């Protein structure tokens, strides 16, 4: 693995300069186009075509391809840096090599993303001149900022990739220098605190504030804090790369959000507010949160596909071991992002509803209700296949055989949950079939499985089951739990702090539920009991969490975990699953609070149980070394399938998000008066997305192949 000099896929010398020149030229042209375009008020929309191609499908395809590559480019650095930090912290070169190999994939995809972005921009400006003129008029400041951020990302990426060996080794920086960086870190942290308390941007939405705090300010503060030598400086550059990438994504998301929930403009589309209002529209941050997690999962799985292909073609046990490890880490990262993703989706959906009930109804009960059934199939498959991959991975762990017996139960829970999740809200039936059901379009039994409470319950169960698989996996070669008390104060304090934060998260919502006035939800006072009940359940959950922590601190951690997992499973799946129907009938607006409470209980439980588990098996006696490479080829196809499925799902979600606007370019402000102003069928969607997935995968294979021959050349 020491072939990493300055090799990009294009060999050693000209690659960086060529890339930079290419990007600069592209951005310059984009900047000129933006600068030359006046701010249109609403006027007759002009549409153009090129070579008789349906302009909408062309834009759709280009945007999809750009987003696929963009998601990969934004997702991979997130975990590349994390893996590098793990390697740096443990002084393990294996992780450093892996992080480098992930980054080498990134450098290849970056130019393609930029090229597709340029093509998309040209296509939009030439085929939809009125619409783009209007958007450029509103967002011209942000578009320039966007272009400038590209410079930052480009330079950070090349510094990160090509400086890998250069910023390695050497001694510590001088004490003065280290204190300087710590001082900058503290200054950033102080700004962050002021920002959090509302001292900066008091009118900002809560979600935007947290997004900026957690993804820009905090990483920068931590980045400066850790700088003490060349390697940590390199990690800091990696953090910068992520900050630039995230900012680019957030700016572009604001345009997509504005098209769905315009803000800062009047009914004629004239900007009457500020550019910030247009930027911080209702859906901008929920989309950014959803996309951020999606990118992380997607980046992980595309890197996993790379590892799987390499594994399948590996000739030596060493190669197999290396790519097996790479595949495992990729899948682990993807699962970590997949777990909160449904909740981010739920939040986005809620905000869509709050923006427009018509758009919300169209999403879940209109044009896209069946598209969501396909989405449920894909997301359910992602979890089932991820679990399968974990179970397959247990074959490489000596001692894991002890846990095989649990797999059938987990599989059963997953399949039942999957089936419920797939059950449609209302079935397409003939009049005769409806007549046989006493005139109701709801099936007497299936209606209970097709409604939101059932779906919320099973999605929580799927996540719990996946987490349980992960626990079995990581305990595979551990002989038994160790004493937490014997690990000193550090372990106990860590469990206490993290546990307290997690439980406080649940407790604050319990208090909210116990105090909430039903009038806030437009409900009469006698419906308070339905809100209070959620509060009582949350209090019960908090007690279980406290008991789990106390048991863990008194060396009965396994019992504590079992109690906490059991109570959580009961609360979120069984009790609130059933109670959700009662709430739906008696106090429907409270249903969203039920969902939030389920999410908080689940996340809190996962965090506490994971932390206890980390100490419970820290330095536990091993039953044998992990036998990397001892995996079935079948499992690698599972990894590939995961990648295909998530890519198809991303395309599908893009179709829904964009299609929700119906025949509006900008919802409620600028109508789409073109001949393509209609919602295509699901078949058209699968054709379009399928073609994009195929081309994306072929593109990835080609780039990975180029990367492979460059490495080979270096080895030679």
């Amino acid at each position, binding site marked *: 693995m020491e072939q990493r000099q300055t090799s990009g896929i294009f060999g050693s010398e000209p690659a960086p300069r060529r890339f930079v020149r290419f990007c600069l030229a592209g951005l310059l042209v984009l900047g000129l186009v933006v600068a030359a375009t006046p701010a249109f008020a609403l006027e007759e929309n002009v549409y153009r075509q090129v070579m008789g191609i349906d302009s909408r499908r062309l834009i759709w395809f280009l945007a999809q391809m750009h987003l696929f590559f963009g998601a990969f480019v934004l997702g991979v650095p997130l975990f590349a840096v994390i893996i590098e930090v793990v390697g740096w912290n443990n002084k393990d070169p294996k992780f450093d090599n892996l992080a480098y190999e992930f980054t080498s994939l990134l450098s290849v995809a970056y130019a393609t993303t930029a090229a597709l972005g340029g093509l998309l921009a040209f296509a939009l400006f030439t085929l939809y001149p009125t619409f783009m003129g209007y958007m450029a008029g509103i967002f011209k400041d942000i578009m320039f900022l966007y272009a400038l951020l590209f410079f930052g990302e480009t330079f950070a990426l090349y510094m990160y990739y090509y400086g890998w060996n250069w910023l390695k080794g050497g001694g510590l920086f001088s004490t003065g220098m280290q204190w300087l960086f710590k001082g900058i870190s503290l200054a950033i942290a102080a700004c962050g605190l002021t920002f959090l308390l509302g001292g900066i941007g008091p009118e900002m939405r809560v979600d935007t504030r947290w997004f900026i705090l957690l993804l820009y300010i905090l990483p920068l503060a931590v980045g400066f804090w850790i700088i003490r030598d060349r390697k940590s400086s390199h990690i800091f550059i990696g953090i910068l790369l992520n900050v630039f990438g995230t900012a680019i994504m957030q700016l572009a998301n604001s345009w997509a959000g504005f098209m769905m929930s315009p803000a800062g403009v*009047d*009914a004629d589309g004239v900007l009457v507010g500020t550019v910030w209002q247009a930027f911080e529209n209702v859906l901008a941050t929920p989309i950014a949160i959803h996309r951020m997690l999606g990118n992380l999962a997607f980046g992980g799985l595309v890197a996993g596909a790379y590892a799987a292909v390499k594994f*399948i073609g590996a000739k030596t046990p060493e190669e197999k071991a290396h790519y097996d490890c790479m595949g495992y880490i990729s899948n682990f990262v993807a699962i970590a992002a997949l777990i909160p993703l449904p909740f981010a989706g739920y939040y986005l959906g809620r905000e869509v509803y709050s923006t427009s009930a018509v758009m919300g109804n169209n999403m879940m009960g209109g044009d896209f209700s069946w598209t969501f059934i396909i989405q449920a199939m894909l997301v359910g498959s992602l979890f089932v296949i991820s679990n399968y991959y974990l179970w397959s991975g247990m074959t490489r762990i000596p001692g894991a055989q002890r846990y095989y017996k649990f797999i059938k139960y987990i599989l059963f829970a997953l399949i039942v949950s999957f089936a419920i999740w797939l059950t449609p809200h*209302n079935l397409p039936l003939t009049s005769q079939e409806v007549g046989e059901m006493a*005139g109701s379009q709801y099936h007497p039994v299936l209606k209970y499985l097709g409604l939101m409470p059932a779906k919320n319950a099973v999605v929580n169960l799927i996540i719990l089951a996946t987490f349980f698989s992960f626990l079995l996996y990581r305990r595979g070669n551990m002989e038994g739990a160790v004493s937490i008390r014997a690990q000193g104060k550090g372990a106990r304090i860590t469990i206490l702090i993290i546990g307290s934060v997690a439980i406080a998260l649940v407790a604050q919502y319990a208090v909210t539920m116990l105090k909430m006035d039903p009038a806030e939800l437009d409900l009469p006072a006698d419906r308070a009991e339905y809100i209070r009940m959620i509060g009582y359940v949350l209090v019960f959950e908090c007690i279980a969490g406290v008991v789990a922590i106390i048991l863990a601190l008194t060396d009965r951690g396994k019992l504590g975990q079992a109690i906490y997992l059991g109570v959580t499973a009961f609360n979120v799946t069984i009790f609130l699953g059933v109670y959700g129907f009662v709430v739906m009938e008696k106090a429907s607006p409270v249903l969203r609070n039920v969902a939030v409470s389920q999410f908080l209980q689940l996340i809190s439980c996962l965090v506490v149980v994971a932390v206890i588990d980390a100490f419970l098996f820290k330095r536990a006696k091993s039953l044998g070394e992990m036998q990397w490479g001892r995996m079935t080829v079948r499992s690698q196809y599972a990894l*590939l399938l995961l990648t295909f499925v998530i890519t198809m799902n991303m395309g599908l979600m893009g179709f829904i998000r964009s299609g929700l606007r119906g025949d509006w370019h900008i*919802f409620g402000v600028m109508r789409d008066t073109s001949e393509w102003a209609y919602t295509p069928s699901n*078949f*058209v969607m699968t054709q379009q997305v399928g073609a994009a997935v*195929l081309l994306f995968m072929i593109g990835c294979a080609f780039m990975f192949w180029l990367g492979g021959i460059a490495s080979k050349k270096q080895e030679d």
Partner: protein
Amino acid sequence: MNVTITRVLPFLLLVLGVYLWIGYAITELTGGGRKSSAAVDISPEGGEAIYWGKGRCFTCHSVGGQGSAVRGPNHGQFGEKFPLAMGARAVERAKERTEKEGMEFTAIDYTVESLASPGAYVVKGYKNEMAVVYAPPISLNLKEIKAVIAYLMTLGGDLDMAAIDTKPSEVTLGFYAKIAAAAEAGGGDPGLGAQVYEDNCTDCHTLNGEGGEVGPDLTGISAKGLKFISEAILQPAKALTKGFETYVAVDKEGRQTVGLKTRDEAGEVDITKANGDVVTIAKGELKEIKIDDTKSIMPDDLSEAMTVKDYQDILSFLMLQKPKPAE
């Protein structure tokens, strides 16, 4: 590369094949893409095209066995729950409306009302959640709404085109006026606009005898026209109403008080500030008092506090505030 071509590519094609098949099967089951209709005539055919297209009625309603939506009542004859199709059902519902309101409702009046004020008489067992079809994003114009009414009336009822279009009843005319006013205001929802008004305006403005008196009485404000109302919300200083000029009073110590002059008597003046506080200043203490026509005590940041939707909604609500006929 060999592995990719010989093993991974066929696998990918297989997966994509399944994906395409699912898309195809679901489209076969549920129908294809929905094309928006172009401009239509006021006819049942035009209404049908809008019902299943631009109007998005199919999102919540079905017509008998056609469509699968159940969020709203089925408009056809359907099972025990809907023994009558919409046209015939409207006759029955109109009788109930007549009884409840004490004024004559025809089937067309009822049907028009259900589109103009969907929350007025909700079908039992359903929620008051119907979208305002003349507001964005659906934004049907009056002609298109009339076409939909015509279509609904043909579902088991008698179609009277004159009563829909050329010779509507007084009740229907009232609803048409409401739709037209809302459409003129950018298609806002007057019902939601009332709430926006309550949240933002009622402390300072009087409407139909209720509310604060810091700002002008808005009863009958629609007479001033859309442009004036729009400007008054977004740039209040540009549309100051006589008697509500902004005064700047400076006392001898240089303290400035800005607001409406609500009392001016021999010895003192009252200045009512934007927050409703009344400041009484003795005239002997005044250094100067003058009108500042560049300022309004009405907040000038309402465009920031309101969303586009709120703005459209409140405009449509204010456009419905017609002057009261002289007693």
